[in-house]
Structures are given as C-alpha cells and as structure tokens.
C-alpha cells in the first residue's frame, strides 16, 4: 500500500478543502509536514484513520466531535448586532458537509476511499450525529472507476484495522502499541506475526485442525462400527471427548491466569506509587526480592518443563511402556560385580532379600511380584534365568549410552530444582520480612494492597500449577489415544473408508508438523534479522552501549553491553529510539516478503509509515538519528513534525529523501496573539501564522514548500 493523496473538507480546524500529496518516488519517498503544536498534525493523521476505519483515537464514538469545530461553533466567529440583538449568520452551504478522501495504491491498483457525513443541525453546539457514508472505488486500467460493493471488508484485506496502529501512529503512543502486556497478551504478538506474513499459514494450521477433528470423528465412528475394533473405537470416542474438554479447560485456565497476572502486576505498580521515603525504600527492596523470587520461579518452571520433556520424549523413547508403568530405568552400576558366573541363585536371593527387583520395582513380601521372582528359584532352570538376564543386560547395554545421558540429565535437572527451591524459599522469607516492615508503617492502603497482592500471587501460583497439571493430563490423554490407535492399526480391518481416514489423518499431521517447522524457522530468522537491525541502530545511535535483544514475544529488551544486565531506566528517549527502531525494522523485514508469492507464507503487510510527532521524549541527537534510520527502513514515510522540534541541520540527514514538503499556516482570529514564530527551511523563513482570519481563511491551511 502506498498513499497518494489526502483531501479533506471541513475537517476539524481545516475549514474548506485541503489537500496533501504524498511522495511515492523510490529515492524520495518521504513527505514531511511541518506544523506548530495545536494546529492539526494529529488531526490529519486522524483524518486518514477516520476515512479508512471510521475510528480515531480521540473521537471514535461520537460523530458530532468529528467535523470542523469552528463550523460547529460558528456563532463564536460570525455574528452581527441588529436592534440590540445578536444575529448569527449561517455559514456557507459547504460547511454542512465534512468529508475525507484518500487515494492510495495497493498491489498495482489505485483506489479512492471517501467517507463523508452531513450535518443535520447547523445551529448551536449540539450537532446531531448524522450518518457517515463510506465508498471505495477501484481504478481500472482504462482509467474509469468501479465502486466496490463491500468497501470496509476490502479495506480490511488491504490493511486490517488491528495492524494499522503499527503503520499510522503517534510517536507518543508507540510505547502503548508495543506493550505486549496489554489486551489478552497475544494480540501484540499476533499483530507482529501478521505483519511478518503469518496470516495465511496460521489460518491454514487452524483449518487443518478443523479438518483433522472432523476426520477423527468420522474415523472413530467407523472403528466403533466394526466388530473387530468396536471396543477400541468406543474408547477412542470417549478419549477424544475428554481431549476436547481438557483443551477447553486449559484455555479457560490460561485466560484466568492472564487476568490474575495482569491484576497482580497492576497492584505491584500501585504499591510502588504509594508511601513516603522510608516506605519507598522498603518498597524498592521488596520489589527487588520479589523480582529475584519471581525470576527464580520462572527458572524453576523451566527446570520442571525440562524434566517433563526429558521424561516424555527422551526417557519414553528409551524405556517406552516401562516408563509409563512407572518402572525406573536399569542402572548398570547397581549390579556391577554382583553377577559372577554361576551364581544366578545368589543374585535372585539378593533381590528378594533387598525387596528390590532388577528394574528397581519394590518386591514386598508375599506380593505377586515377590512370588514371581521367588518362583524363578524353584521352577526355572539356571539357563533360562541366565538367558533372560543376558537379554535384560543386552537391552541395557543397547541403550546404556542414551540411558546414562538421560539419567545424568535427569539428575542435573533434579539438583537444579533443589537449588531453585532453596533460593525461592529464601527470597520468599525476605519478601515476608519486608512486607511485615511495610505493614508496620500503619498505612492502611499499603496493608490492603499488600494483602490483595498476596492473594493474587497465590491465585497465580495455583492457576500455574493447574495449567501444568492439565498439560500433563493432556499429554497423557494424547499418548493413550496414540496407543489405542497403534493397537487398531495392527488389526487388519478390510474397510477402505477407514483406511482412507487413517491416511487422511497421517497426511494432515505431517503437513501440520512441516508447516509449523517452517513457521518456527522463519520466525526465528525474522527475529534474528530484526534483533540485528535494532541492535545496530542502538549501537550506532544510542548514547550508551546497549545490546538490544528481541525475545520470543517480540519484546525489545535492552541490556548494558559490558555487564549484560537489564538496562532498567534507560531513559524514555532511548526506549523510544529502540521502539521506533523495532517497528521500522519489523516493517522493513516484512517488505522483503513483498514478492513472496511462491513461498508458504503470505506476502508481508506493507503500508506506509505515517508518524505524528516521532520525537516525543528525544533529545536532539536521538531526533537526528531517528530521521536517519526511518527513511532507510521504510518504503514510504509521512512525518508530521512539530516546528519546535525542527532544526535546520536535520536537512543534512533527511533532506535528500524528501519528495513532498508542506507547512501549516495558522490563521489567528483578529485580536489573537501572534507569536511571530517562523519555520526555517533551507535558508528561507516561512510565516506559519497570520491574522487574516475570515471565511476564506479559517483555522489552519496547508502550504506546499516547493
């Protein structure tokens, strides 16, 4: 998508018709609009948003707030006194319409979008909302325009509204749109994935899942209908119902956890903001200990996950069904030196004496297991036992390499878990002490907040545990289903329809796996490239030596290069720089996918960057740096820049990229204050305000700098 022209009619403080042509030249793709504060920079960004989506951040609900405010309050500027009464003069007819027209190009086709509304009541402040009309025209190769029947859907396909925030935004809100903690927690990551071109492959995975579920129901019904497989089929149907139920429960638990976690974080912030100096000091110590504890809890969870993974995948692959039966693996070391030739009986007796089988299972006296082993002494001949033990140890030798690695890894993780538990306990004690001290201040608010925080923390922990346990049940259920399905495969059923369903399932699963691997590979490489660009930008332009890293949720984390510690309080300007750098490198990366039709992923979302006031919180060096990398990393850039933040020497970095340039002229009412401020551009000083306020010059007008 490339913007061509914006045309407004009676839009807020831009009375009458105004136009902005946007530059699309490859080497001069920047349009720079200079404006004084309060003269309508955000207003024009909002005009684009209102035209495309009918919403703007400032006035998304009430249409009455949208039109030219001076028209709405016309009585404040145009009236005359006759016979001692004030007579208001009705504005011209054109004032009854307000409209925004946007021309743009997408994938080689030109479009014209118009949204307009008519005022029903021109008198007084209470303007009736009225209805707006939205139209979208597509230009044909012959030059004539075709009206598109579902314009809003068409716009959504070109630049979905949920992604527009990443292309059309105010510098001041960049932190908000890059905050992954907002919303449901996945919205941000999903939006970034959409920009990177995952939309179609994500949809494909979802649809393959639907097809798979549909197929599984059919397959299970066929299995249950066949006499040979009836019992297994019924079990499968039940297990699949369980599976759906568990998946739903897991989704609910995850949702509850996100809500509880968000409340917990909010309350933590609230505590930070309360209290006096001493409380704040304790509060800061408390935060540090809580952070240490929470970090350790995360680490501990990592160890648990590692342990589960080791057992579920590695351990299961080696020991298979034995692990499922909770039989511990054979440890060769245990039996070293205990098996001299010809003393098998001694070995068996030893097992019985120690009440431990070779496989580590308990051999309690008089149990079936105990009697079975004992029976070996009485009934079996030595060669059978010898043969069986030889087989057992051959098996152990066969797997000893992997088994030992598995066991040593398991031991390592278990040790790490123990250390982690000790650390968590020590941090928790410190937290308890600090909380007691904080409560000692007698601040009721803090005490209540601390109590609420503790409750929420507990809720989070309980929910986390429930999620882990539910995930284990889910894995087990899946494993049970897989086992039954393997059993069914062994039964030769002469049913071509069933065979087709089984093949169907296999193909879908392989396709899903393959697609997921492709996605992971691409996501990883995208993250790597984006990290590299952000990192380079930070190294080149940041005041300090920061290393930037983009994590798996696409959050940008800055660390101090030498110490490798998190750059807490890096400064709002630095954070702003890193966030803008992230967005531009994200879009820049997405641009590479523009011609990716032959690939498995959708072409990345490409749209112009329209940034209002990009310099919020930045000093001059950062402003200059931003003007340097923004043009380099975008295919079309439209900047609304405050006159107060423009420096003539910025021309050196951005001047060559500017294809179109405008400034706003503010028409001051007679008697209003003229600030005498001017805009210096390439040695010329432009008048940015005048006191020629009349019907022809209301509010702000736009002047092109040639």
């Amino acid at each position, binding site marked *: 998508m490339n913007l061509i022209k914006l045309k407004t009619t009676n839009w807020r403080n831009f009375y009458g018709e105004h136009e902005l042509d946007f530059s699309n030249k490859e080497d001069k793709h920047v349009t720079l609009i200079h404006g004084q504060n309060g003269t309508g920079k955000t207003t024009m960004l909002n005009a684009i948003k209102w035209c495309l989506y009918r919403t703007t951040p400032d006035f998304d609900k009430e249409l009455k707030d949208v039109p030219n405010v001076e028209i709405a309050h016309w009585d404040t500027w145009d009236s005359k006194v006759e016979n001692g009464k004030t007579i208001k003069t009705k504005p011209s007819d054109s004032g009854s319409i307000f409209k925004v027209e946007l021309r743009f190009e997408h994938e080689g086709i030109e479009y014209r979008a118009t949204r307009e509304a008519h005022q029903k009541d021109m008198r007084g402040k209470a303007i009736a909302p009225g209805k707006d009309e939205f139209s979208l025209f597509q230009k044909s190769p012959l030059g004539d325009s075709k009206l598109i029947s579902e314009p809003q859907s068409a716009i959504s396909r070109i630049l979905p509204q949920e992604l527009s925030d990443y292309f059309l935004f105010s510098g001041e809100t960049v932190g908000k749109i890059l905050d992954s903690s907002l919303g449901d927690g996945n919205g941000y990551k999903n939006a970034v994935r959409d920009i990177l071109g995952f939309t179609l492959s994500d949809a494909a995975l979802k649809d393959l899942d639907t097809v798979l579920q549909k197929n599984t129901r059919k397959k299970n019904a066929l299995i249950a209908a066949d006499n040979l497989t009836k019992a297994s089929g019924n079990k499968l149907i039940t297990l699949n119902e369980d599976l759906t139920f568990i998946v739903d429960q897991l989704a609910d638990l995850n949702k509850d956890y996100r809500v509880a976690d968000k409340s917990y974080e909010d309350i933590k912030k609230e505590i930070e903001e309360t209290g006096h100096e001493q409380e704040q000091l304790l509060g800061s110590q408390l935060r540090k200990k809580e952070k240490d504890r929470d970090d350790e809890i995360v680490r501990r969870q990592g160890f648990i996950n590692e342990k589960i993974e080791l057992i579920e995948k590695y351990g299961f692959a080696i020991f298979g069904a*034995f692990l499922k039966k909770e039989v511990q693996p054979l440890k060769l070391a245990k039996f070293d030196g205990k098996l001299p030739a010809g003393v098998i009986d001694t070995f068996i007796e030893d097992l019985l004496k120690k009440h431990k089988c070779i496989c580590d299972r308990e051999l309690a006296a008089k149990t079936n297991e105990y009697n079975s082993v004992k029976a070996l002494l009485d009934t079996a001949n030595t060669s059978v036992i010898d043969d069986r033990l030889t087989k057992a140890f051959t*098996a152990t030798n066969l797997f000893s390499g992997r088994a030992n690695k598995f066991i040593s890894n398991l031991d390592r993780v278990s040790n790490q878990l123990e250390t982690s538990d000790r650390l968590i306990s020590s941090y928790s004690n410190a937290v308890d002490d600090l909380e007691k001290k904080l409560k000692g201040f007698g601040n009721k608010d803090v005490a209540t907040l601390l109590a609420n925080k503790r409750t929420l923390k507990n809720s989070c922990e309980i929910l986390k545990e429930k999620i882990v346990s539910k995930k284990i049940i889910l894995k087990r259920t899946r494993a049970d289903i897989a086992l039954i399905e393997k059993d069914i495969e062994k039964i030769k059923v002469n049913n071509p329809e069933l065979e087709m369903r089984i093949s169907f399932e296999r193909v879908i699963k392989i396709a899903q796996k393959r697609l997921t691997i492709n996605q992971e590979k691409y996501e990883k490489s995208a993250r790597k490239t984006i990290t590299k660009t952000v990192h380079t930008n930070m190294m080149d332009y940041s005041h300090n030596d920061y290393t930037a890293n983009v994590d798996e949720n696409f959050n940008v984390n800055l660390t101090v290069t030498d110490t490798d510690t998190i750059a807490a309080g890096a400064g709002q300007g630095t954070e702003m720089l890193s966030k803008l750098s992230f967005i531009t490198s994200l879009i820049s990366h997405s641009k590479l996918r523009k011609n990716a039709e032959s690939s498995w992923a959708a072409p990345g979302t490409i749209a112009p960057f329209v940034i209002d006031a990009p310099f919020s919180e930045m000093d001059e060096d950062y402003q200059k740096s931003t003007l340097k990398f923004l043009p380099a990393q975008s295919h079309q850039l439209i900047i609304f820049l405050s006159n107060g933040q423009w420096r003539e020497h910025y021309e050196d970095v951005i001047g060559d990229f500017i294809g179109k340039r405008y400034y706003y002229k503010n028409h001051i009412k007679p008697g209003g204050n003229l600030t005498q401020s001017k805009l210096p551009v390439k040695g010329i000083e432009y008048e940015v305000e005048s006191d020629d306020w009349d019907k022809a010059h209301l509010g702000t007008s736009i002047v092109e700098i040639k």
Partner: protein
Amino acid sequence: MSEDKNLINLDELSTIMRSAEENFEELSAQRMDDYDNLIKRIILIEKVHKYGSSGFEKKIKEIEDLIEAFIKKEG
C-alpha cells in the same frame, strides 16, 4: 514357563524403539517437496478465500478434496 511381565522383554523394547524411531523419522527430500507443494496449495486456498467472499464450509471442503487427491496420488 510364561514370560514374566516384570522382566525386560527385548522384543518389546525393540518394537518401542522402532516406533520411537519412526516418530522421529525425517521425511525424505522427495516427500518433503511433496508436502511443501501440498502446503502451498492449501495456502493458496486460504488466500483465495481471504480475498474472496465464499464461505468457511466451502474452504474446508476444498482443503479436504485436496488432501484426498494427495493421498490417491500417493497410492
């Protein structure tokens, strides 16, 4: 004497290992290409439906038909 369930059964272990191997088996280059082509065609269906207006059921049916054809071709 019947097999004691408490003792290691090498055959059973071998079977489990074989099935574990199968699970980890990488697709051959040719098969990878076949599946990548199948995925591309599914993505194409997604694309057509994203920019078109036909319903969800129709899209699912198209994906099912595509997979059926893939299996038949596979033999």
